[in-house]
Every structure is written in C-alpha cells, then in structure tokens.
C-alpha cells in the first residue's frame, strides 16, 4: 500500500491510493499521494479549481459543515475532478449530473459568488457568518432569486455531502463522534 509520501508512478498506484483515502496532489513539482487534509496543510497545487473557486468552495463548505475547510474540501473536490468519471469519489455521481463535473462546480460556485456580490457587494468568501447563512438557507428549496447557475439544490447537496464525507465519514471522524468504525477492510490511512 502506498504511503503518504510515496511518489505515484502509475494509474494502478493512484487507484490503490484512492481506496486508502489518498489522492494524487502536486507538491513542489512532484506528484504525491496525500489525504485532502494533508494536501491543504502542505499547500499542494490545485489542478482544476481556480483560486477564486477554491476560496468560494472552502467558504461554502465551511458554512454547510463546520470543519470542512480544515479537512481539505477544496483539495478533495479538486483531486476528484481530474479523475476519470468511473474513479470519481464525489457524491455528485449519485445526483445524475452528467460528467465531467468540473463545469458544474465552476458554474455553481460562480453563481454563488455572483449572488453574494449582487446582494451584499462582496464575494461569498468575504461574507460574515450571518450573511453567508442567509444566502445558503433557501438553496435546498431552490428559492433563489437572481440565481444564475446549475440547480441550486444540487449544488447545495453535492458540496454539503462532500463536506460531510470529510468531516463525518472517516475513521478519525467516527472516533470523534464516539462510533466504532468496525471495518471489514480498514482504510489503512485516515482521510
């Protein structure tokens, strides 16, 4: 099983790493397998998301599920957006949004940012907690005046679930919640 710092040399290694909770990131010009949390801590490059999208996604994920930013939601989504559809680990593949998914996230995050600018004069990531919550609250019901993007409920569910995966779906998270992970095949490293 690849370790967190072992260079990924081929697709088989990448797939094995994915099963272990590791994803492929670029750090200092070298490809490495890391968890999303490690990738964020070490400042790994983004391959798909822009800097603006990254800021918005981290802020959005944090509003939805506290702890998502530190858990590496932006790196988690980014790494999965460059994987083939069949290897993608994002919940969005359950929501019947046609792949590739990069355009969905880009358009959704832009719509969220645009709405924040239209309503509060600043980007979503710069809103205070109450302002961000006010913008997010009507999303699931799709009651979004001025929304210009993919269906807001889908974006809400996708990012909320991405965040919940990282904050609640790992062996570490189970331990925090006081739950036994009781795995048949334990993920050998934490997410």
């Amino acid at each position, binding site marked *: 099983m690849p370790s967190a710092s072992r260079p990924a040399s081929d697709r088989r290694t990448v797939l094995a790493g*994915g*099963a*272990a*909770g590791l994803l492929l990131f670029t750090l200092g010009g070298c490809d490495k397998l890391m968890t999303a949390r490690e990738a964020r801590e070490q400042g790994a490059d983004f391959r798909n998301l822009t800097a603006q999208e990254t800021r918005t996604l981290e802020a959005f994920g944090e*509003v*939805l*599920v*506290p702890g998502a930013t530190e858990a590496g939601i932006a790196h988690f989504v980014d790494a999965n957006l460059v994987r*083939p*559809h*069949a*290897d*993608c*680990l*994002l*919940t969005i*593949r*359950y*929501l*019947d949004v*046609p*792949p590739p998914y990069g355009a969905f996230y880009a358009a959704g995050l832009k719509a969220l940012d645009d709405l924040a600018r239209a309503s509060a004069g600043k980007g979503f990531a710069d809103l205070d*907690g109450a302002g961000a*919550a006010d913008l*997010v609250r009507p999303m*699931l019901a799709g009651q979004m005046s001025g929304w210009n993007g993919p269906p807001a409920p889908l974006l809400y*569910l996708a990012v*909320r*679930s991405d965040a*919940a*995966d990282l904050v*609640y*779906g790992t062996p570490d*998270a*189970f331990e925090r*919640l*006081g*739950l*036994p*992970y*009781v*795995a*048949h*095949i*334990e*993920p050998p490293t934490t*997410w």
Partner: protein
Amino acid sequence: MTGARTDALIVGAGAAGSLYAARLAAAGKSVLVLEAGPAWKNEDLVSSLIWARRLRWGGPPVASGGDNPLGVGFNTGWGLGGAALHHYGTWPRLMPSDFTMKSDHGQGLDWPIGYDDLRPFYDRVQEEVGISGDADEEVWRPAGAAYPLPPLEQFAQARLVSAGFEKLGMKTAPSPMAILSRPYKGRDACIYDGWCDAGCPIGALANPLVTYQAAARKAGARFVTGTYVTRLIQGSNKGEVAGVEYIDGDGAAQRAEADVVILAASTIGNPAILLNSTGEGWDGGAANSSGLVGRYVMGHSIAAVYGFFDDVETQNYLGVSGAQRTNQDHYDKTSLGGGAFGSLQWQIGPATKPNDLLGVAMAKANLFGEDLTRFMDRAVHHMAVMFGFGEGLPVRENRVELTDAKGPGGTKLARVVHGFPAPSMKLWEKASELGVRVMDAAGAADPWSGPPASAHLMGGTIMGSDSETSVTDSYGRCHDVANLFVAGPGLFPTGGAMNPNFTNHAVSLRGVEHLIGNWPK
C-alpha cells in the same frame, strides 16, 4: 478480441448474468460474458461509503428526468457483480397479488405467470444462496420453504421501532436477508459492521462474486471486463440475432458471435442496446414490434421516517444496510385508502453511517452549520430509522429512451423519464404519515419524515403473453427474436413493494433452465 464463437453470449456480469452463466456453463455450453466495468475482487471492497461510489455506473452518461427522476447513479452497478455487488441483500418474495394487479384492480399490468410458477425457483435459490429469516414470523409471507438460516442478530433501533408497530396493533418480523447468520456453504457469517453498501468482502452477503459468478467460472464460463456492448448484430433475418458489437478495453470496435445472446445489462442498459440495434425489420430497434422496449420503467417510492430515543444508544451504525425487521400489514394495494394505490413494505432499522446519501447527515438535509453539528452529535447515537417502500404503478409513459447525444461506437445515449402516478404519490404520503405515527407510538422524540425518494430499477423490457403487449415471454425470450433473451428486473410487469433481487434470481433461474431445455435450433 474475445475469441471463437460461443454457444451463449451474456451481456452484463451482474446478478442475472452471473446466474445464467453458471447454469449454462454447468450444462456444457461455452459461455462468454462481456462486462463494461472493471474486474472487482472481494479485496477491493474497502469499508468506506466514499470509496463505494466507484461501484456505481461509470460508463457513458445516462440522463434522468421526469417529475420523479429515478436515481440512476445510485441504483446502478459497474463492473463484475453489477448493482448486486453493493445491494443490501433484502430478499422478500413478491406476493401472489403482485402477479394479478390488472385482473384484480383494472390498473397496471398482469404477469403472464403467477406466484405458484415462481415458488419452486424462490425455494431453490434461497437454498443455494442462503437466506436468514423466520418464515413463521412473517405472517404475510406466501407459501414456500422455510429459510435455511435463522434470522440475523437484532440491534436496539429495530427493537425500539418495532414496539411502535405493536402499540398500533401491527406486527413485525425479522427481515428475510440474503446475508448469512451462520457460516453456509463455505462462506462466513455476517459480523454486523453495517458496510453492506460498500460491498461485503467476506461474502456473508450474497453478492455475485461469491455466489453464481464463482460457480460460473468453475464451470468454465469466461468473463471479459472493460467491454462495452453497443448493439446487436442481426442474423439471417429479423427473427434472429448473430451476436453483438462492442468496444474493447483499447477502444477498438469488435464483434462476438454466439448461438444465443442474453442481455443482462440492467434495466437501463438492456433497452438501450435494443433501441440502438437497427436493421431490416428492426426499424424501431430489435425485438420492438410492440413499441414497448423501454416502456413501463418502474421504481419504488421511499418514505423515510426518523425519530430520536435520547435515553438509549440506538446502535444505528450496526447491523446491515438493508433492514433488521419488516412490516407488511399494508401490502394490500388499496389498504391505505384516500386515493392511495399500491403495496407498502416497511424496512426497519437499517444500519446508517454518518455520511453518504442514506447517511445520518442526509436525514435532515436542510440543516447546516452549527445546527448540523448539534444534530449529528445527537443523531449518531440516538436516531432510529425506517424506510417504507411503496409500489410504483406501472405506466407506459415511464420509459428508457434514446437521446440525440452520441455515445461509444456511434450509438445514442439513453435517458430515463419517470414520474410516480398520482395514486403512487398518495401512497408515499400515506406511508409517511403512518410512519411518523409509528415512531410517535414507539416513544420517539421529534419524529419526522423525509422528502420523496426512490429506489430500485425495474421494467422497460416487460414480459407478457404476446408480442403486442410485451417484449418477451415469461422466460425472457424475445417474442420477435427467437435466440435473444433478456434477464433482470427489467422483465417485471409489476414490482410490488419488494426489493427486486430475490425475484430477479427466481425469474432468471426459471428462464435459464427453460433455455437449456429448449435450446434454439
């Protein structure tokens, strides 16, 4: 290349395809199985609901629309084992009334066979695969052999919720599960870790890798993965199929020929292949003189009901992903009244992990921020869950159809259009109300029900008595093409309120044994 012509060519290595392969190979037929996805092994089934997403369809996109879109991405499979690799192993039988809906109520469809025709196949499959349950406790259960294994272990949330049913004068019984409560035929017993959705690597849950696929390989059937079948090749006339065209793992177009072709490529994949197969006399697609290929697609509605038991650890993370107990007091199709039509089955106490589509966090999808944090801290220890599976009335308008979008090999991509008819939606509403009353009676705090959801994919290549009203006969043989068969829940004219995989196995066993005894000339 897949080599020489074979006796039988099977498209899809899920539950139905694997059973067909096992029986045909055992009968001495040369068998080739073409599977679009990867060659999963038990050791690939890591206990993680994040990882489990790779077990779902990863091929060309399938669009899903209509008033109540079916969850294609969640309900389908990808690779050896198909959807049955991540299914939950809840294996109730259909009821006799499910076979006579049209005759009894003037709605929906009838099957061309009755429960008694399938009963011996249910009995044999359950003995081969191993089902845990208590036939006597299931007072609703139709006639049939007792289960070969005692019920699975029960955990707190099932006992708590069952008490609510009893207070309302209703009964519960252990769910019949294709999960081993004891070691059986060389397979290990369940350890109740609740990871069924991620696949069961110890083989306690009857996934095809450890049941019929293992038998098929032993008998000589050959499985080739990474091969995407695009269309059928017409034989010497419109009533005959010669084989299939497919895209191999290197992206090259190939052909495979066989005496008999069996489509077992899912409820969506089968009609998509048929509709993409055109030729002389196949103007609307192969085996489609009825115009019904793709029609009568069905799903089950889900009434998700929750409640808190704050003084008790509900152990909702333990057990199995399917259900611990069942109630079928409202299986009669008109028993809920008020305009509701269709059968209802409760599945009580499924193991619920914190994340994923059916996880704790999604039980109240409207919560976010600190409200969600507080909810999670409470719910992971004190929430109880049950799901009411409601019958979707079969209607012609619900369909798999081709779009103008191009897929591999010049094919057209598929789209599923589905909406629950009004009586089915009323059934869901009534089920949700009933479920909250049950939770309340059980003493749950703050009981609530979730928004409409759906599960299971059935219909689209329905069986029937003739070529005007159906695609195949009761064995899955296409009315229009004598050596072409369809296998899987796509054959069902009605789906009752029962998880489809046990009936899928029984119908498949009946079909393949008939095929072996009546091999096309």
